């Protein structure tokens, strides 16, 4: 064979192998997605919103403003919400679809086995069943019809707009949006705000640390004097608890990943016209939720048949404005922390039956299949008891004895009317109509603050709060109940996966609330000192609530009236009250000095601990070194106080330590400090100093940075890492590592100068200039207008037709 023939043979082989490799292996998938010109991924870079859309509901227009906020106008409400659905579908469909997959337990089908645990949990709790029941209740109602118009709009956008980048990257297809999917999003929100496993953690702590220690470290009621409704009565006492069973530690750890991050909370306050220069009230609200890419909220303005004219934020997938302002009023929400979930064990016979009082009942059981992309499918048993769902990590056959299986009652498992309440709130013509709407807000339990153009102010706790009874007597929901003995039964109105009534729930008038308060602040702290009924197993520490009230009180007693600029300044307040609480400990450390490390390392020039902390003003500013040292000292101090003792007691490694209010108010000779708090604090100071030196941080902003990640966690999809202010203890709330904080800052007035800001951008499309255009302004504490003027020009015109 000559040289030419050899060359031809070799090149033929190379070409054949290369082309075969491209066409027949995984490489083809990459070529299909990423090849220039034809790659499916690049189709997302050429998205153009359709200028004209046919709508079966009639004419509407959408005008996007400079911040990509859609201003929807229509003469018919259904036409308006078809257009709103189109906007959500065009701007945020991937996010909506991902939340739906999370809640229905079908994430593994697209992301693989990393999501199997999540899918098993969500199937077992059966959020999908609860959402279906809720839609059955809404279907055919006025609200249900509007939801259907919205869903049709979403699906029209999915058909007509270019497929979002994320689907192209992962090579899967969008699925049709449904009314049940809208309600799954609502369930996701409710679960994030009220789905807590605190009862199980405390039961485990009582078993490992003893009741007395648990009561001291995790008190149901903290002894501060700034509840939301300040009546000066002092907190009511907790009761003795006995658990029916101790939860299995592995199950407690497993469940923790399916509840809210620690930083979830919010601030809101309402100020009456008596306190303002204009004589009009003000509503301020900044909900602290997960700071995600794209943001959890979507801003919109909807103008429809009179009186519909509402602007604010909705959750993508939910048609209506949740927090915002309409023609007559403005409103906001913070989490009330009410206890709306309980856990039960049962006596079982091993044949699928369990005892319930004098009866023997069968679990309602079915098997579902979790599809796993690139892996083997997983079978999951979905089980219901009389109380609701049944949760288990990995059943070991002994059923409920070890409490690795638990019955769960949760208000969100019922068919609720929240979507109807929010729909009515959007058109409420003042305080009375807003109250009528909010009475239907069955879940989640929230602090609702409202003010109207007539000068009324209003605060009430929303949502159903169960009254539990054992032998007919009300009991607190602070322990694991024996379900077979009918302990902790909820009232007859609770029907899991069916239509509930308010029978057996705390009546509306008995829930905390105030009509026409002069001013009132909510920051997830205790609702009131002496409620008529048991409300909650735990509240947030009083740092934010106390600081807001301090600022409002100071202004109220000064000559200066409150105004919007003042309220925005309070929202951005960076004074950390934890500093004042811990200052005596820092002073004690200054007296004995900070120990050096074994290698004799000296502190950096930027830090002269702890003396530099003694003259600090407690402001968590990014340019200062003191907040960095304080924050890391506090972390080290907390860890040094509890970690070893908790490990010795057999608590799981990630078991949450007591909050900073508890740590800061423990007596100096508490056993948790081994009798010498100052030494523990001094060593923590040394450890904090060394950590800062090791990391090379110079000031607080080097550590306190925006770290918002997209679910795919690709660098180009994540937001830029910006230095910012605030901490877990400040009103301007920001949790660096948990990435939680102000997911929306709003100060609403009645003079046309309402302002707000999102952490990111209104579009979820990476290729949009509005993907993160508000991020820097948010990080720097700026606001933009949220007035209800429709901008000139129309971006999308909806015309009558079937499409």
């Amino acid at each position: 064979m000559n040289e030419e023939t050899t060359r031809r043979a070799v090149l033929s082989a190379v070409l054949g192998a290369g082309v075969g490799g491209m066409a027949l292996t995984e490489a083809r998938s990459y070529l299909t997605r990423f090849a220039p010109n034809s790659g499916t991924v690049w189709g997302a870079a050429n998205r153009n919103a359709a200028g004209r859309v046919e709508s079966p509901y009639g004419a509407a227009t959408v005008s996007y403003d400079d911040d990509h906020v859609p201003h929807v106008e229509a003469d018919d409400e259904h036409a308006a919400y078809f257009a709103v659905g189109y906007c959500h579908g065009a701007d945020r469909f991937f996010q909506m679809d991902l939340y739906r997959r999370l809640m229905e337990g079908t994430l593994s089908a697209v992301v693989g086995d990393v999501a199997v645990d999540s899918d098993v949990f969500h199937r077992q709790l059966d959020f999908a069943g609860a959402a279906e029941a809720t839609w059955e209740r809404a279907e055919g109602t006025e609200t249900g019809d509007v939801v259907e118009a919205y869903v049709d709009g979403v699906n029209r956008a999915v058909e007509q707009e270019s497929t979002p980048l994320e689907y192209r990257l992962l090579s899967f297809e969008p699925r049709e949006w449904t009314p049940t999917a809208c309600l799954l999003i609502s369930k996701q929100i409710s679960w994030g705000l009220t789905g807590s496993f605190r009862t199980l953690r405390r039961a485990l702590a009582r078993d490992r640390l003893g009741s007395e220690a648990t009561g001291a470290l995790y008190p149901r009621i903290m002894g501060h004097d700034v509840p939301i409704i300040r009546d000066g009565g002092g907190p009511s006492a907790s009761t003795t608890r006995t658990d029916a069973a101790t939860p299995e530690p592995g199950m407690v750890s497993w469940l923790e990943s399916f509840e809210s991050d620690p930083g979830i909370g919010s601030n809101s306050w309402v100020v009456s016209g008596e306190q303002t220069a204009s004589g009009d009230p003000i509503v301020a609200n900044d909900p602290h939720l997960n700071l995600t890419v794209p943001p959890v909220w979507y801003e919109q303005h909807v103008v429809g048949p009179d009186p519909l004219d509402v602007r604010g934020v909705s959750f993508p997938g939910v048609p209506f404005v949740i927090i915002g302002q309409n023609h007559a009023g403005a409103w906001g929400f913070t989490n009330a922390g009410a206890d709306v979930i309980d856990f039960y064990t049962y006596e079982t016979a091993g044949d699928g039956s369990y005892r319930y009082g004098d009866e023997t009942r069968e679990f309602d059981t079915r098997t579902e299949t979790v599809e796993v992309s690139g892996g083997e499918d997983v079978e999951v048993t979905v089980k219901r008891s009389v109380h609701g769902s049944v949760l288990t990590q990995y059943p070991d056959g002994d059923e409920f004895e070890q409490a690795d299986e638990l019955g769960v009652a949760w208000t969100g498992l019922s068919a609720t009317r929240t979507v109807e309440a929010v729909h009515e709130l959007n058109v409420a013509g003042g305080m009375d109509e807003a109250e009528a709407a909010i009475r239907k807000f069955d879940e989640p339990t929230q602090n609702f603050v409202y003010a109207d153009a007539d000068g009324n102010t209003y605060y009430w706790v929303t949502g159903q709060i169960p009254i539990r009874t054992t032998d007919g007597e009300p009991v607190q929901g602070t322990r694991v109940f024996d379900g077979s003995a009918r302990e902790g039964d909820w009232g007859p109105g609770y029907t899991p996966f069916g239509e509930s009534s308010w029978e057996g729930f705390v009546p509306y008038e008995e829930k905390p609330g105030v009509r026409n308060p002069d001013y009132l602040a909510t920051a997830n702290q205790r609702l009131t000192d002496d409620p008529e009924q048991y409300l909650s197993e735990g509240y947030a520490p009083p740092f934010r609530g106390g600081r807001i009230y301090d600022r409002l009180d100071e202004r109220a007693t000064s000559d200066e009236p409150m105004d919007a600029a003042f309220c925005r300044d309070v929202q951005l307040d960076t004074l950390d009250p934890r500093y004042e609480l811990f200052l005596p400990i820092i002073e004690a450390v200054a007296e004995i000095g900070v120990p050096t490390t074994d290698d004799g390392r000296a502190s950096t020039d930027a830090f002269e601990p702890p003396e530099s902390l003694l003259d600090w003003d407690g402001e968590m500013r990014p340019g200062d070194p003191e907040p960095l040292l304080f924050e890391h000292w506090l972390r080290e101090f907390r860890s040094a106080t509890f970690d070893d003792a908790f490990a010795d007691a057999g608590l799981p490694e990630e078991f949450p330590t007591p909050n900073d209010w508890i740590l800061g108010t423990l007596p100096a000779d508490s056993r948790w400090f081994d009798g010498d708090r100052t030494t523990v604090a001094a060593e923590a100071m040394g450890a904090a100093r060394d950590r800062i030196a090791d990391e090379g941080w110079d000031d607080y902003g080097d550590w306190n940075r925006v770290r918002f990640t997209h679910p795919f966690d690709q660098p180009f999809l994540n937001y830029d890492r910006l230095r910012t202010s605030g901490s877990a203890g400040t009103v301007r709330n920001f949790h660096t590592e948990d990435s939680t904080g102000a997911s929306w800052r709003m100060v609403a007035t009645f003079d046309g100068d309402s302002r707000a800001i999102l952490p990111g951008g209104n579009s979820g499309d990476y290729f949009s200039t509005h993907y993160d255009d508000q991020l820097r302004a948010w990080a720097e504490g700026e606001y933009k207008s949220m007035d209800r003027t429709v901008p000139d020009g129309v971006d999308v015109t909806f015309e009558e037709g079937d499409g």
Partner: protein
Amino acid sequence: MTPEFLTELREDDSRRVAATNGAALLGVGLSLFHWSGLLLAGALVALPQRTIPRGIGAGFGVGVLAVVVFLGQLWFGGTLGLVLGMGQPAWLALALGLGLPTFGALVRGVV
């Protein structure tokens, strides 16, 4: 092994240039619809060239053209900066744009 018409084409400068240009346009046009168009583009522009190195060079050249078309579309769409900001996916696209036609041009060494 080499068909007569190709031999003749390679020897006629004006026909060769015309065939190269036509092949480049056809290949880049096909690349708008499927990635195999890039392979084909490289092969088509390489075949009329007189030598194998020139053929491979022509393949690389049509790759450059395909990449310019790709970047141009993004530039007109206002998303060029964002696509380049994606990092790995963008570099992968550029590498495929240059690599596939060059690889396809190896056919010049066979025919």
